[in-house]
C-alpha cells in the first residue's frame, strides 16, 4: 500500500463543525422590557429574561401570528485558549440566536412569509437544558406580551437545542403548537456514556496521561481539561500522520503505553474499535468507508475500502466525539459534583459483538479485535462518583410523551449527536403510543391514536470520499451531506420550517404526496418508517 499526504489536519476540519456559533447581534444590555427598533419593516427587540439570558425577537410588519422559537446548540461554558487545535480562541458567549446559526437567509425567508422568529442566548452555557427550558417558557410570555396577536409558537433547535425543544414539547403542550428537535441530543447519561467511552478508548490505547474525567474543581480542573484537549488532538494528529505514512500498519503514537505484543495489531484497528464500542458512526465528513483511490491494484483497493478508509472515518469522527467528551465532561462534572463516567461494569466485547464481523478487516480480523478487547478487559476501569452520576440522572430527561406534532431530523453519520439520539426519542414515543393504544382499547375505543411524530433522516451518499491525483485523501472538500454535526443546508432548514408551520396550522404532521414533494425538493431528506438507527450503546441492541 502506498503512502499518502493529507492537505489539511483532520482535527481542524472535523472539530470546527462543533462550534458553529454565528453572532447575529449583541444586545446592549439585559433588559426586563425589550428595546425595539424597526428597520425595513422588521421590528427587532432585544432584552433579557429574569435569569439575565439575552434574547432577540424579530417580527415583520405583516406578522401572521406564528413565531419560531429557536434553541441553540451546545456552547462550551469555558473559554478555549488559542493554540488548541480546532478549538482555540473560543470565548464563552450568550449571544441570542433566533434561527439556526443566525442564518440571514432563513430569518429573511421566514420574516418575508409573515412569521416572527426569536431565540435566547441562555444565561449559562454548557449543558443547560433545565434552565434553558425555563428561559424559553419565560421568553414565550415576553413575546406574547409584546405581540398579543400571537396565536402559535413553534419550537425548533439544534443539538442541545434539539433536546430543549423536545422537552418543551413534552412539558408545555399548551405553549407549543409544534416542535422540531434537529440533530438532537437525547438524555445526558447515554450521551455522556458515548463521549466517555470514546475518550477512555483514546486514553487507554494512545495516551494514558489523558485525564479523561474526574477533573479538579476550579482553575485546576479547567487546566486539566484544556490539557486533555491538547493531548487528544495530539493523538489524533499523530494517528493521521501514522496512517498517511503507512496506511496498512501505521505506527502507534509515541505516547501509547500498550504492551509491545499488542502493537502487532495495527493502531488503525484500535481507532475502529473505539468508534464501534462508543457508537461513533463509521462514515465521517470525508471518509465513506467504501472508496479507494483510483489506480490502486485491485487487492490494495479492496484493502483500502475495507480497512484504511474506515479507520480514517473513525479518526475523523473521534476528533469530534472526544472534543465533546472533554468539554462536556468537565462541564457536567462541575454541575453534578464529581466524576460522571463509570465503566467498571461495561462489557466492551458485548458492545461490539454485533458489528465486529462487519468491520472485520478494519479490526484486523478476529485476532486483532480479540487482542484489543483483551487489553481493554485487563486494564483498570474508571469508577465514577455515585452521587454525581445520580445527580446527573436527575437532570431533565425525555419521556417521549408528546401530544403536539413533532418533526425529527438528523444526519445518520452525525459524530456528536449520533442518530441513536433521535432513535431513542422515536422508541420512547413508540412505547408511549403503544401504551395509549392499549389504554384506548381497554376503554373500548377502537380508534388508534394518531401518530404525531415525523422522523426524517439525512443519509450520506454511498460514495463521497475524494482523492487527489496523487491518490491522497482530499479533506479540503466540504463535508458530505448526512455527516458532521448538524450539517444541514438552508433548504433543509426551510423545509423543516414549512413542515412546522403546517403542523401548527393543522394539528398534525404533513403526510403523503405533499410531504414527499416537500422533502424531495429540499434534498437529502428521507422519510422511511422502516429505518431504525443504531441505538446508543448505553441502551444496548
Amino acid at each position, binding site marked *: 500500500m502506498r503512502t499518502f499526504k493529507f492537505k489539511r489536519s483532520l482535527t481542524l476540519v472535523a472539530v470546527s463543525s462543533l462550534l458553529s456559533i454565528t453572532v447575529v447581534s449583541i444586545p446592549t444590555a439585559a433588559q426586563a422590557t425589550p428595546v425595539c427598533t424597526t428597520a425595513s419593516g422588521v421590528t427587532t427587540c432585544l432584552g433579557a429574561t429574569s435569569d439575565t439570558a439575552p434574547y432577540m425577537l424579530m417580527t415583520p410588519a405583516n406578522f401572521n401570528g406564528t413565531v419560531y422559537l429557536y434553541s441553540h446548540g451546545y456552547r462550551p461554558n469555558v473559554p478555549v485558549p488559542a493554540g488548541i487545535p480546532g478549538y482555540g480562541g473560543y470565548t464563552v458567549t450568550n449571544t441570542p440566536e433566533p434561527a439556526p446559526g443566525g442564518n440571514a437567509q432563513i430569518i429573511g425567508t421566514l420574516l418575508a412569509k409573515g412569521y416572527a422568529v426569536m431565540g435566547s442566548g441562555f444565561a449559562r452555557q454548557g449543558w443547560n437544558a433545565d434552565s434553558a427550558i425555563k428561559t424559553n417558557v419565560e421568553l414565550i410570555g415576553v413575546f406574547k406580551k409584546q405581540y398579543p396577536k400571537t396565536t402559535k409558537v413553534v419550537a425548533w433547535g439544534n443539538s442541545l437545542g434539539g433536546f430543549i425543544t423536545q422537552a418543551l414539547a413534552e412539558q408545555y403542550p399548551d405553549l407549543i403548537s409544534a416542535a422540531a428537535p434537529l440533530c438532537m441530543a437525547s438524555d445526558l447519561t447515554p450521551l455522556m456514556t458515548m463521549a466517555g467511552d470514546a475518550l477512555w478508548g483514546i486514553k487507554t490505547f494512545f495516551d494514558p496521561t489523558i485525564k479523561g474525567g474526574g477533573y479538579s474543581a476550579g482553575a485546576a480542573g479547567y487546566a486539566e481539561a484544556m490539557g486533555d484537549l491538547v493531548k487528544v488532538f495530539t493523538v489524533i494528529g499523530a494517528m493521521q500522520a501514522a496512517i498517511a505514512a503507512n496506511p*496498512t500498519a501505521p505506527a502507534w503514537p509515541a505516547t501509547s503505553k500498550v504492551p509491545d505484543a499488542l502493537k502487532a495489531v495495527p493502531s488503525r484497528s484500535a481507532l475502529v474499535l473505539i468508534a464501534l464500542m462508543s457508537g461513533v458512526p*463509521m*462514515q465521517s465528513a470525508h471518509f*465513506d*468507508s*467504501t472508496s479507494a483511490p483510483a489506480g490502486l491494484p*485491485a*487487492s*490494495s*483497493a*479492496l*484493502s483500502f*475500502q*475495507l*480497512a484504511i478508509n*474506515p479507520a480514517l472515518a473513525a479518526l475523523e469522527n473521534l476528533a469530534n466525539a472526544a472534543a465533546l467528551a472533554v468539554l462536556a465532561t468537565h462541564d457536567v462534572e462541575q454541575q453534578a459534583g464529581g466524576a460522571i463516567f463509570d465503566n467498571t461494569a461495561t462489557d466492551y466485547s458485548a458492545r461490539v459483538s*454485533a*458489528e465486529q*464481523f*462487519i*468491520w*472485520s*478487516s478494519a479490526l*484486523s*480480523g*478476529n*485476532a*486483532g479485535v480479540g487482542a484489543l478487547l483483551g487489553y481493554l478487559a485487563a486494564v483498570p476501569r474508571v469508577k465514577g462518583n455515585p452521587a454525581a452520576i445520580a445527580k446527573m440522572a436527575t437532570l431533565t430527561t425525555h419521556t417521549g410523551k408528546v401530544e403536539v406534532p413533532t418533526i425529527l431530523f438528523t444526519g445518520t453519520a452525525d459524530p456528536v449527536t449520533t442518530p441513536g439520539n433521535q432513535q431513542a426519542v422515536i422508541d420512547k414515543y413508540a412505547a408511549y403510543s403503544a401504551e395509549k393504544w392499549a389504554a384506548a382499547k381497554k376503554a373500548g375505543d377502537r380508534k388508534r391514536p394518531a401518530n404525531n411524530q415525523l422522523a426524517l433522516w439525512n*443519509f450520506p451518499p*454511498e*460514495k463521497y470520499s475524494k482523492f487527489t491525483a496523487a491518490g491522497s485523501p482530499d479533506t479540503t472538500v466540504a463535508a458530505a451531506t448526512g455527516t458532521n454535526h448538524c450539517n444541514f443546508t438552508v433548504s433543509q432548514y426551510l423545509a423543516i420550517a414549512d413542515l412546522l408551520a403546517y403542523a401548527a396550522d393543522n394539528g398534525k404532521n404533513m403526510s403523503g*404526496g405533499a410531504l*414527499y414533494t416537500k*422533502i*424531495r425538493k429540499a434534498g437529502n431528506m*428521507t*422519510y*422511511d418508517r*422502516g*429505518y*431504525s438507527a*443504531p441505538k446508543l450503546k448505553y441502551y444496548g441492541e
Partner: protein
Amino acid sequence: MIRKTRIKRTWLAAAVIASGSLLATALPANAETGVSASEIKLGITLPLTGAASPGYSKIGNAMDAYFKYVNDNGGVYGRKVTLIQKNDEYSPQLSIAKTNELILRDKVFALVGPLGTANFTAVHKSVGLAKRKVPALFLNTGFSGFSNKKSYPSSFMILPSYAMEAKIIAQFLKENHAGKKLGIVYQNDEFGIDGLGAFKAAGTKFDVSIPYTSGTQSAATAQTWVSQLAAGGAQVVVFFGVTSATAPLLAVAAAAKYAPQWILGSVGSDPLTLRALGVPVAVLNGAQTPAGNPSPNDTSDEYVKQFQEINTKYNAGTAFDDYVLQGMNIGLMTVQALRAAGKNLTRKRLVRAMETKGSTFASVAYSPLGFSRTSNVGHTGYYMAVMDANGDRKPFGGSVTLYTTDSGSGPVVKSTFKRPAMPAKGLPSNS
C-alpha cells in the same frame, strides 16, 4: 430514495384499473411491493468489480439467465421474473446502500442470493430486513450464525454452513490423512472462525495455523503463509478462505516448490476461476475439496446438462463453472419458492412457503435441504472430491460419498439421500 408516482390524468387511471380487472381473471390483484400482474422484481448485491469479484461476479448473470429462460417459457404464473443486480464491491457499507436502493427505490419483492457474510450481517442489521419483513432467499454465505431463525426470521440459507464443512473435512482428515502434519490457512473472521471452531470441536489439531484478515490477501502475504507452512513441515494444508486468496497461496507455493496435499474449502476452490487468476492447472492436480454440487463439467448430470444449455443460450460467452452452476441453481430454487407461495404472491406467503415446502425443492446439490418452520438451514452436506490434471473435479474414491451433519455437535454421517429429479426442461411445476 423515496419516489411516489402520481397519475394525474383520470383517463389513465381508469385505463389502469380496467386493465387490472381484466388481468384479475388470470391473476389475483396483488398489492405486494415488487409484484405486479406481469412482473416479480428481485434484487441481489454482490461484487461485480474489484478484487473479490472473480467468480462471484458471474452468479448474478447466471441467475438472470435462468430467469430469462423461465420468462420465455411462461414465467411464474404468468409473471416475468426480473433480477436487479447491485455491485457492492464486497464492501459491507456499500452493501447497505445498495440494498437500501433495492428495497426503497427499486422496490424489489425479495432479495435472492445476497453475497458475503460481513455484507449480509451489515445489511440485515442496518437495513432492518426483519423489521421490514423483506425475504432474503438463498444467501451466498455459509456462516452458521444466519441459521438462527429467531434473529433472521425472513432469511434462508442455501449453502451448508462453514461449520458443517469443517466437520466433514475433519472426518475426511481422520479417515485419509491420519498421522500427517496438518496446516490451515483461514480467513480470520466469522467465516474462518465458524470453520475453526468446528475443527476444534471435532478434535482436529493443526500443527501450523495461519489466520489472515480479509482484504489483505496478496502475493506478498501468501509468501509469508507459504514460509510458515513449509517451516512447520505441514504435509496436509487446509485452506478456508476465498478464491482471491487461494490463488496467490497456490501460485506462491508452486513457485517455491512447496507441494503439500491441499484441501481447499468449497468457497475458494473453483478450478476455472483459480486458473483464470493464474494458478497453473498442474498445481490443482490432486487438490482435494469438499463439494456440494457435481462438477460443472459433468454433462451426465441432468441438472448440469440443462443449466449448460440455458447458459449457452441466455448467458452466451460465459464459461460454465461452479459460480454459474450456483447462480442457475439459485434461480431454479427461487422459481420453486415463488411458485410454492402461490398466485397471490406476498412476502409473508413466500416465507411460509419456504418454511413448509422448501425442503422438497429440486436442487443440483446432493444433500438434503433443512428448511422448516423452525429452521432456515439450506443444504446440509458435502462429498469429498479431488481435482484432476485438467482442473476438473471428480468424486474422491470414484463415486460420490455424501456426508451430512449439522452446525452443532451432531455427528457426521454417510447419507443415502437421493436428491429430487430436475424438473422437466428445468422448469418447475410445483405449487
